[in-house]
């Protein structure tokens, strides 16, 4: 089970839930399951099309097909820019 954490902004869409466990092998599956749990969240996370994800601290941009290891800690974070 992946432990999914939500930022304060994202918690508006989870009814205040700060973290939840989801059984998902990929980010795509995770997003599908989160949408079932929290309708509307997928659109929010997709809003920038480039929402990044941190899986066990490793930041991955554009992660749709990314595998999620068992018991991974997952954060949805802002897309990063840089100079």
């Amino acid at each position, binding site marked *: 089970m992946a432990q999914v*954490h939500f*930022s*304060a*902004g994202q*918690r*508006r869409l989870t009814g205040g839930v700060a973290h939840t466990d989801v059984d998902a092998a990929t980010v795509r599956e995770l997003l599908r399951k989160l949408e079932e749990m929290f309708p509307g969240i997928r659109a929010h996370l997709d*809003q920038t*099309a*480039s929402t990044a994800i*941190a899986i*066990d*601290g*490793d*930041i*991955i*941009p554009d992660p749709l097909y990314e595998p999620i290891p068992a018991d991974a*800690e997952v*954060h*949805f*974070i*802002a*897309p*990063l*820019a*840089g*100079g």
Partner: protein
Amino acid sequence: MTITDQRPGYRYVGTRPVRHDGLDKVVGKARYAADLVLPGMLYGHILRSPHAHARIVAIDTAAAEAMPGVRAVITGADFPELPADDPERNTTRNLMARDKVLYEGHAIAAVAATSQRAAKAAAKAIAVTYEVLPHTLDIREAMAPGAPLLHDDVFTTGLDSEPSEPSNVANRTCYERGDIEQGFADAAVVVEGEFVTKAVHQGYIEPHACVADTGQDGKTVIWCSSQGHFRVRSQTAAMLGWDTARIKVIPAEIGGGFGGKTTIYLEPLAVALSARAGRPVKLVMSREEVFRATGPTPGSVIRLKLGAADDGKITAAKAWMAYESGAFPGPWAMLGCMCVISPYNVENFLIEGYEVVVNKPVNVAYRAPSAPMAAFAADTLVDEIARRLDMDPIELRLLNCPSAGDQAPYGPKWPRIGLRECLEAVRDSDHYRSEPAPGHGRGVASGFWFNIGEASSATVNLNENGTATVVTGSPDIGGSRASMALMAAEELGIDVYDIQPVVGDTEVVGFTDVTEGSRATFATGMAVVEACRDLKRQLCGRAAVMWDCDSDEVAWSDGQATHRAGEHEPLALAAITAEAGRTGGPLGATASLNARGAGPAFSVQVTDVSVDEETGRVTVERYTTAQDAGTAIHPDYVEGQMQGGVAQGIGWALNEEYIHDADGVMENPGFLDYRIPVASDLPMIETIIVEVPNPNHPYGVRGVGEVGIVPPIPALANAVYDATGARIRELPLSPPRVLAAITARNGDGG
């Protein structure tokens, strides 16, 4: 000085060879985009808005088109409108204004003519009718109800309820953890303040330039100055509505970028002009255009409150952070929120960020974008806590220092990071251990930057004489070719000068993201290493053919194939490449990857300043910077990045700012009054390379390009306080502002 955590014995990595592209640069032969001249080439000129905010009522180009030498005139109408959800929609509207101009300098039309004079004269002859609109330049004013609205289709996202009215506030971001009420209740010391910074420019010395040559076949070749030519290709294709296959982009040498050349301004215009005229077109910005029309980094207003227990442990943080985005929304406040307290472990915090559009050029990344303003607030207040508790500012930071496994404020757990090592390096430095000279003030600050990975490609070809060509897709903005050659030399075991590192165009190397986020040596370096490792496997196979044995009997070490059982004399790389034609053909390998695990970067800096109490002039007397490089591939250029970042940070802190008049027109669009540091403004910048290897890179590399610009602002502000007793929370720390603060301090009985 180099502090090493652990370091295998490298032969090339960590050495300081003369860079391969250096000779051309010292003899004046290096070719930058503005240096290219093609037969039949036309010169372009862009007409720009004189107004900060206006509706375009009409554009009449007839007179311009009739002028001698004029071959093409284009306006916004020549570019397809992109749908509202297209990620490049704002780019195209920034490139060429459509219904409205949103800042002074916004492009309106462009001309190509047979000479620069003719093009300039024709641009002047284009008649534009404007309906001037009220403008807004200030964050607080733009956020207030009733402010002039830049866009009627921007509604604030991230609010608790959907807004019904459009706003200049594009987005609200929020990060929250723990219980801040309790955190502040637990604090023995609470400090707070509002920090204000102005827009500042990247200030690269080479203005934007490109040449586009569009052929009868509808294909175009672009030579340009860019941090990422693949992005130039994709953005140009999007602006023109073209298939990317029609566009080839050749990277010229780039004369500085620092984030400012991660987007495009000229290329689609040059292509459109060239397509219309049927001739090559060169577009080169003037310095004034660079200031008026290309991305500065945002101005900001940040309100921060920190609480700390009497032992110095920070118990709570509350931040309200508003960043300008310029004329279109950007991610700047969000990044600021993610950085603001990252060098500290804080259990209770609430961080809110607001992106605010204003009538200024669209903001673009500038070296660790958004982090320096955030650090100004955080590290000034941390300094205040240290003083209130009578603690050493480095010991206070060590007490609150995160390390691997702690949770970063923006969510994930920290991997192995080198902040503690940087703090200790500064604490133990000669600079910090010696007392400041009488009358000098000392300031310390730390800084964080994410660093990013992204996509990179590399092709390594072995030549018949045993040399190698390394082709990557990363424009070299600070010596990365030398780093690529060093990593390839280390892998292949051949001399670094037997390797020719090349930046390939969009048709000779695989897709590579922009040189940004301190990623080139990290990510593109990974691709180079991967390709070299593939080559070594191939070389072993070829040796096996030559020895008529199984390839698993062959190992590669120290630049040669060795037979494990010792039945054959080792074969040097050149001996194998010489036979390549007979053992299976040329030897080459390509690697393309999405680099993961860019190690976060930290820097800690200390500076001593003197302040003329009667005039408010600040002189930087001494400066030391420590930064975790993971592994320094080419220490000269690591130091160069550290020193360059510090110098830019000093300029930002002391003198740089966008100044506008009441009409929203920039008043200082030149190097005379936009005051970047000159050689006599700075002392030597002492560097301490800290090496805490990044476990995710084969050589332990972390990006080094950006984080150096983060600490200088608070370090200098803290040093000015130490020297004068005046706390200044607004940039720049220019003589008038410093003198006013000193005068106010005196008035307060100080």
